[in-house]
């Protein structure tokens, strides 16, 4: 009994530890020390999340953890099941690899006095993302969405250049529009259901659907909340904040923002679909159909924008828009198989896009701050490790077998068979989008491996060992997800069965 209790404390303890490290880092004046504290914290949380994952998968359970001394309808709760634990494991491993691999960028681009502040924001961001994954209370979710927003803006701004300030302003305004809509949705939902905890809200909503009373307000609320989440996670028509922000931020920030922060909102959305609104209600209100259409549009338009882009980082940002479209398409299919594919793509994109951003940052640095793909010719010959990393990432995004991106595309295609009436649309758009992906990723891969005429390509004398470890780690993870994907998809399927109960 003692043992089980200890494991049930892990979700709370992870969030608490991240926040506590943020406070401790405030006392630290040295960037390197702050980096060490951050890495140790993330590593501890990684180990704890793995233990939690093993435990919940073994017991096949979802448990709730009561915060404070007030029981269910009044108090605040955390809730953890296989999906939450899996996401916590992914978030911590990606965070660990990105920050350690990108630590050189942080120490180079951020002024020394501000480096500890950068790590405070990283800690706060990590805590907020974990809280969004674990929370079982809708107002807590709102508060952590705002913490997430402020911390991400601070990470974009850390470079201190005028461009990054403009990028931050754009990002901040669009994010605030999203969280404002979400907040209004939460308030109206509270006034028609009378609860803030997910399970109680779900009961009230099922009652509303049965009695047909307050049906219109429910539709409006669902619309507000999902538009809010879509804006925050940069679904297609709301993507305008990404390119400017990712382009002007340091590569570490761009990697974390694109790989993890966008995903934390989507995971909150998935939890809302299953634990608050329930899949059937979402289907009757036609919200899934709307997400499906926008997802499809995003898959194509994101790639079209990326093709027109000359600067590598902006191209990667638009490619994120396309990949977010894939995830929403999976959610929009409205079936559990579709959701499994979407969840798997969340993992695949998290490990691939961060790898691409890190390698791209390293190319830009080697070529003396020039950012156009044109200027990157031969960059991979100067820095072969980053070149291999970029190539693997690009091939995975295109969907080459043995890599993570291929598996998620296979799952999307398979899932389309199970959703009637959507199969043709999914298969056609999936094919088109993959061709477009190849059309903009392959030229950049060819460019970095082609030597510039008349210029001798010398390898960069020293690659920082942490960067090497992180790139190799990401490449291995890509292959692991691409080859031994069975256990992971089984965990995702199991967790969706549990969530949908």
């Amino acid at each position, binding site marked *: 009994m003692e043992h089980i209790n200890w494991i049930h404390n892990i979700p709370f303890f992870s969030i608490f530890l991240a926040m506590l490290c943020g406070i401790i880092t405030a006392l630290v004046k040295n960037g390197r020390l702050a980096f060490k504290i951050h890495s140790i914290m993330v590593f501890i949380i990684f180990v704890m999340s793995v233990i939690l994952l093993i435990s919940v998968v073994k017991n096949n359970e979802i448990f709730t953890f009561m915060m404070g001394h007030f029981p269910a309808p009044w108090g605040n709760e955390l809730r953890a099941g296989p999906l939450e634990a899996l996401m916590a494991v992914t978030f911590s491993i990606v965070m660990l690899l990105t920050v350690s691999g990108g630590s050189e960028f942080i120490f180079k681009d951020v002024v020394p006095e501000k480096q500890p502040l950068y790590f405070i924001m990283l800690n706060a961001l990590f805590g907020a993302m974990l809280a969004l994954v674990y929370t079982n209370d809708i*107002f807590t979710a*709102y*508060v952590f969405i*705002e913490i997430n*927003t*402020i911390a991400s*803006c*601070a990470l974009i*701004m850390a470079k201190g250049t*005028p*461009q990054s*300030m*403009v990028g*931050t*302003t754009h990002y*901040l*305004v669009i994010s*605030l*529009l999203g969280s*404002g*809509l979400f*907040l*209004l949705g939460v*308030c*109206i939902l*509270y*006034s028609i259901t009378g609860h*803030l905890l997910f399970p109680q809200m779900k009961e009230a909503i099922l009652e509303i659907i049965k009695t047909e009373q307050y049906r219109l307000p429910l539709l409006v609320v669902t619309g507000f909340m999902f538009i809010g989440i879509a804006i925050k996670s940069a679904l297609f028509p709301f993507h305008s904040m990404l390119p400017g922000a990712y382009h002007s931020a340091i590569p570490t920030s761009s990697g974390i923002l694109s790989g993890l922060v966008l995903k934390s909102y989507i995971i909150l959305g998935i939890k809302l679909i299953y634990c608050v609104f329930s899949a059937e209600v979402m289907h009757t209100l036609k919200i899934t159909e709307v997400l499906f259409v926008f997802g499809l549009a995003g898959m194509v338009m994101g790639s079209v924008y990326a093709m027109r882009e000359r600067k590598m980082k902006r191209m990667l940002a638009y490619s994120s828009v396309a990949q977010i479209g894939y995830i929403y398409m999976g959610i929009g299919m409205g079936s559990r198989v579709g959701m499994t594919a979407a969840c798997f793509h969340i993992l695949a994109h998290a490990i691939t896009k961060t790898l691409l951003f890190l390698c791209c940052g390293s190319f830009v640095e080697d070529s003396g701050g020039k950012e156009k793909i044109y200027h990157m010719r031969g960059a991979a010959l100067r820095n072969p490790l980053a070149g291999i990393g970029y190539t693997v990432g690009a091939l995975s995004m295109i969907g080459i077998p043995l890599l993570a991106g291929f598996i998620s595309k296979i799952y999307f295609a398979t899932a389309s068979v199970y959703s009637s009436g959507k199969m043709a649309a999914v298969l056609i758009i999936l094919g088109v989008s993959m061709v477009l992906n190849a059309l903009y990723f392959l030229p950049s891969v060819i460019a970095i491996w082609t030597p510039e005429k008349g210029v001798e390509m010398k390898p960069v004398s020293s690659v920082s060992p942490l960067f090497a470890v992180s790139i190799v780690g990401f490449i291995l993870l890509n292959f692991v997800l691409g080859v031994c994907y069975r256990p992971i998809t089984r965990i995702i399927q199991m967790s969706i069965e549990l969530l949908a109960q």
Partner: protein
Amino acid sequence: MNHLGTNFYEAVSVILFGIGFMNLLLQNNLIKKFIGLNIMDTAVYLFLAAKGYIWGRVAPILTDGIVDASYYVNPIPAGLVLTGIVVSVSVTAFSLALVQRLYMHYGTLNMDEIMKISREEEGE
């Protein structure tokens, strides 16, 4: 129409929310933009406060020894408003600091002009 009369406060707060939202989205002047943000958030607090109030009851503070819940209004919306105020204050502080730095560099508060100058600088 009848419903609009009974839900007067809620209707007003949703209209205010719309005003704030459009201000945040479309206003070019950065200071006015973030004033729009504050209007939007305040509208939500009005909504919550109106929902939490029950006619004829008093604030949930135990003074006369009455522990019967039907004597007091619902305290939860007030708690949510407090949390929301904290969030909106910190977001406003952050954005104003950002606006100040932008003004110091670009010498204008107009978002369009800032974008224009920034694009020119980038193009060099």
